């Protein structure tokens, strides 16, 4: 029974990984790629790690898998946020069909606080 649950969790994780990487190739600009790939691959890898935990139970393998899942789920969004900020500051433009860029508005209002008043 636990074997079946572990295999199902690993299969779900593999599906998330694969679709995230398809998004990484197919989407139009760096911010779209970042959000698709980071969210899907983080969740997919966590599913694989939880599947290993279910398969191994309370053993060194299972506990380390659980620790690794917590670590991945904490650090991956931080890295993605830093990368998006770095890409925006380094001057990569948004896709031409993007409708809103709040960070650009925020930076402009900080550079010239009295321009709009």
């Amino acid at each position: 029974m636990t074997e079946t649950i572990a295999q199902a969790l690993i299969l779900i994780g593999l599906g998330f990984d694969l679709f995230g990487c398809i998004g990484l190739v197919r989407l139009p600009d760096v911010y779209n790629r970042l959000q698709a790939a980071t969210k899907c691959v983080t969740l997919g890898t966590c599913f694989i790690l939880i599947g290993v935990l279910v398969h191994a139970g309370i053993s060194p393998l299972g506990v380390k898998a659980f620790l690794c899942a917590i670590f991945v789920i904490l650090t991956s969004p931080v890295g993605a946020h830093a990368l998006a900020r770095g890409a925006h500051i380094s001057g990569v433009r948004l896709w031409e069909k993007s409708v809103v860029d709040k960070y650009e508005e925020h930076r402009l209002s900080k550079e010239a606080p009295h321009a709009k008043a």
Partner: protein
Amino acid sequence: MTPAFLNFALGALVLSSVLCLYRIGCGPTAPDRAVAIDILGTLIVGFCCILGLPSGTDFYMSIAIAWALLSFIATIALAKYLEGRTFDD
């Protein structure tokens, strides 16, 4: 875990990694490549899990934890480099 299932899992992860490598090779800008490198690091953690399953020992998981840590530090360093800042501000 049957060998067929493990082979299927490794095949799916290899396919994902090839898509990542395509983006690393053909990414039009530097941030595209940095994003793909970050994703590839997370995929390699998944690789280590699948490789550690048949043996039942935990040293592959130690590799996975160390790899996740190093991949995070590399991502933060790349992001600071893209922002045009040095490492001491």
